[in-house]
């Protein structure tokens, strides 16, 4: 750990401590901004330093730290303006900074235990973002978030316990599979993958994600989607590193990679299909976080599957992590502006907003281009890398994998369709007469969006720059050493672009068809509708839930009564032991000095006799 990395972790905590003392709202905002700025500067410095001492140092950590600090820094411009409308803004600011520190700690930790510690801190502090509004929905979502977060931490802890009990080092970046071939290690790695998968929103443990991201204040949602779930992704990358990436199919349970790929594609499909049905803008974006994390997981999966040859998958995963942070944060912040000025999150009640918010509309369009993978924007770059990866995996593996490649394209269509829907409903369509608009766009609100849009476009136009200067450097230390193909990647291949454009067109036409035939809010007879079924299903579930809850409460009451009895019993027992000869509770047992000497001598005698036995 260098000084700058420790400072990256420590300064947000110090800043959060100072925030308790600030007098005015402006001072709070300024202090927050200052802290994030310092952290951003430090992480840039750290990045540069890491690059300078390249093969010796940890590039992956530097990249993740830089991206998270950058996103935080931009959001801190947006935050004060947005939080004017919210209550208890100070506590949000404090937890904003605490979470920054924890996230930096996760990315910069060089030891699994430290990583776990910061992971837990991050869970708890970001829990306060989720419950910030303190209404029923927020609290339910918050507890979902907290419990699954703690479950994730437990899974990780169990994995680490397994690793440690095998006598393997707990340093991050050690290739564990080459040190031991015990089955316990596979369990350990499975536990780690599940633990980090929960945080990343992997199917079937993604359930907390849409709830939590919807109820948090928008800057919180942006960071939750942009960075916090990337902590899980980061953990999965680090876990992949412990599996022997340089020598893949021979060493470790061969189907690990395949399982991860299948989980990834399921995550994508589920996320995107649920996203298509949403009418709440933030919920739609949240489900897209699930599906985009699926892309990343597929990348990691291909890297595990292909091992040394999996450079496309891994580079694509890291690149998509970064890109997703940018465009998803931008999209959330854009929706936040609309929500701030109209109080509306329902897409069907918006409309025609491009007249009132022209700059927001433009910048969000760029972000939409990014997420749909339009050539010339950043999403295209990472998606084509991931696509490359999956094609290579299909070429090696065959079987299921070619189908996964097709589904991969299908998800692209779904993504485009749902964003076309979002953009059309919110901006292009005729305005809803009931929509009230108070206020306009504001420089501070627009600024982070602008920067994000610039970065999105810049990466889209010059994708090689960041790939060659940073991501490729991170690959060898992660265990993927054949990077020559990647260095020579040409993103502007006609076939790829054509493929993408086909996907886009298909998506838009699907969207148009959807609107034409009301697929997105399809009203069939009640007994047939998904909602009806769903409602009954949920009714049944809730009945079951309440039943279980009642039983659980009874059991807990029983248990606590038992525990109380037990405690009283222990108390009585020990006090009886204590007063009858061993010493008197609460008073000096001076007269027992004879007894004490006796005890010592008997102990001595027993010790002596021990050798005869």
């Amino acid at each position: 750990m260098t000084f700058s990395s420790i400072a990256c972790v420590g300064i947000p905590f110090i800043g959060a401590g100072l925030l308790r003392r600030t007098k005015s709202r402006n001072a709070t905002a300024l202090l927050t901004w200052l802290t994030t700025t310092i952290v951003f500067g430090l992480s840039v410095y750290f990045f540069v330093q890491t690059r300078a001492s390249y093969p010796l140092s940890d590039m992956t950590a530097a990249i993740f730290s830089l991206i998270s600090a950058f996103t935080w820094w931009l959001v801190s411009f947006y935050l004060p303006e947005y939080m004017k409308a919210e209550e208890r803004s100070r506590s949000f600011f404090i937890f904003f900074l605490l979470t920054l520190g924890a996230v930096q700690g996760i990315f910069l930790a060089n030891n699994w235990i430290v990583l776990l510690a910061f992971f837990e801190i991050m869970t708890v502090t970001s829990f306060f973002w989720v419950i910030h509004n303190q209404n029923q929905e927020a609290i339910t979502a918050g507890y979902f978030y907290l419990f699954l977060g703690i479950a994730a931490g437990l899974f990780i802890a169990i994995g680490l316990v397994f690793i440690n009990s095998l006598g393997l080092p707990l340093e991050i970046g050690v290739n564990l599979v080459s040190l031991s071939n015990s089955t316990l290690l596979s369990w350990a790695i499975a536990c780690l993958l599940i633990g980090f998968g929960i945080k990343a929103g992997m199917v079937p443990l993604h359930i907390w994600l849409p709830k939590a991201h919807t109820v948090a204040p928008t800057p919180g949602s942006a960071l939750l989607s942009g960075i916090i779930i990337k902590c899980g992704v980061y953990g999965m990358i680090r876990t992949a590193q412990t599996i022997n990436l340089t020598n893949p199919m021979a060493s470790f349970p061969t189907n690990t990679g395949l399982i991860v790929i299948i989980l990834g594609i399921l995550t994508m499909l589920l996320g995107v299909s649920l996203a298509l049905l949403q009418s709440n803008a933030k919920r739609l974006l949240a489900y897209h976080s699930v599906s985009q994390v699926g892309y990343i997981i597929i990348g990691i999966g291909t890297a595990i599957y292909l091992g040394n040859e999996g450079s496309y998958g891994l580079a694509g995963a890291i690149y998509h992590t970064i890109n997703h942070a940018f465009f998803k944060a931008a999209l959330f912040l854009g929706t936040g502006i609309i929500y701030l000025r109209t109080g509306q999150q329902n897409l069907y009640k918006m409309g025609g907003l491009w007249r009132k918010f022209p700059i927001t509309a433009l910048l969000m369009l760029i972000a939409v281009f990014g997420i749909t993978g339009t050539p010339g924007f950043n999403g295209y770059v990472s998606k084509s890398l991931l696509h490359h990866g999956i094609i290579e995996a299909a070429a090696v593996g065959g079987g299921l994998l070619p189908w996964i490649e097709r589904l991969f394209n299908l998800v692209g269509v779904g993504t485009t369709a749902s964003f076309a829907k979002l953009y059309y409903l919110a901006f292009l369509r005729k305005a809803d007469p009931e929509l009230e608009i108070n206020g306009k766009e504001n420089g501070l609100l627009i600024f982070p969006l602008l920067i994000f849009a610039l970065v999105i476009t810049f990466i889209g136009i010059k994708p090689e720059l960041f790939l060659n200067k940073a991501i490729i450097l991170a690959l060898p230390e992660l265990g993927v050493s054949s990077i020559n193909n990647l260095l020579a990647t040409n993103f502007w291949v006609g076939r790829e672009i054509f493929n993408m454009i086909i996907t886009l067109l298909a998506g838009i036409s699907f969207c148009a068809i959807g609107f034409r035939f009301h697929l997105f809010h399809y009203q069939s007879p009640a007994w047939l509708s998904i909602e009806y079924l769903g409602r009954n299903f949920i009714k049944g579930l809730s009945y079951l839930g309440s039943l279980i809850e009642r039983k659980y409460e009874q059991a807990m009451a029983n248990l606590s009564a038992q525990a109380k009895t037990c405690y009283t019993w222990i108390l009585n027992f020990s006090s009886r032991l204590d007063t009858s000869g061993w010493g008197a509770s609460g008073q000096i047992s001076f007269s027992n000095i004879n007894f004490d000497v006796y005890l010592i001598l008997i102990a001595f005698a027993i010790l002596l006799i021990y050798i005869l036995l």
Partner: protein
Amino acid sequence: MAKRLVPILAMILVIMALYVFMLAVAELPPYGNVDNPAHNYVYEHYVNNALEETGVLNIVTAIILDYRSYDTLIEATVLFTSIMAVLITLKKGEQH
């Protein structure tokens, strides 16, 4: 019942412990023998070289005041400690 048993038990224990003691004492090097491990190179060094090295005729003095003088410093400290202990136990500490 139990109260009567306890001393008997203790007595048995003590007798068995004494037995082990005797075994141990029987194992010890014979008393007063020159070849005992206790009279090894350390002893020889003290007896042969104490006069040259320290210039003291009494070898015991040479040992406690020169070879093991650190021990003697601490021994003096024990005395000092006990003086302080007696002071803090018995004296009120008021000077006037």
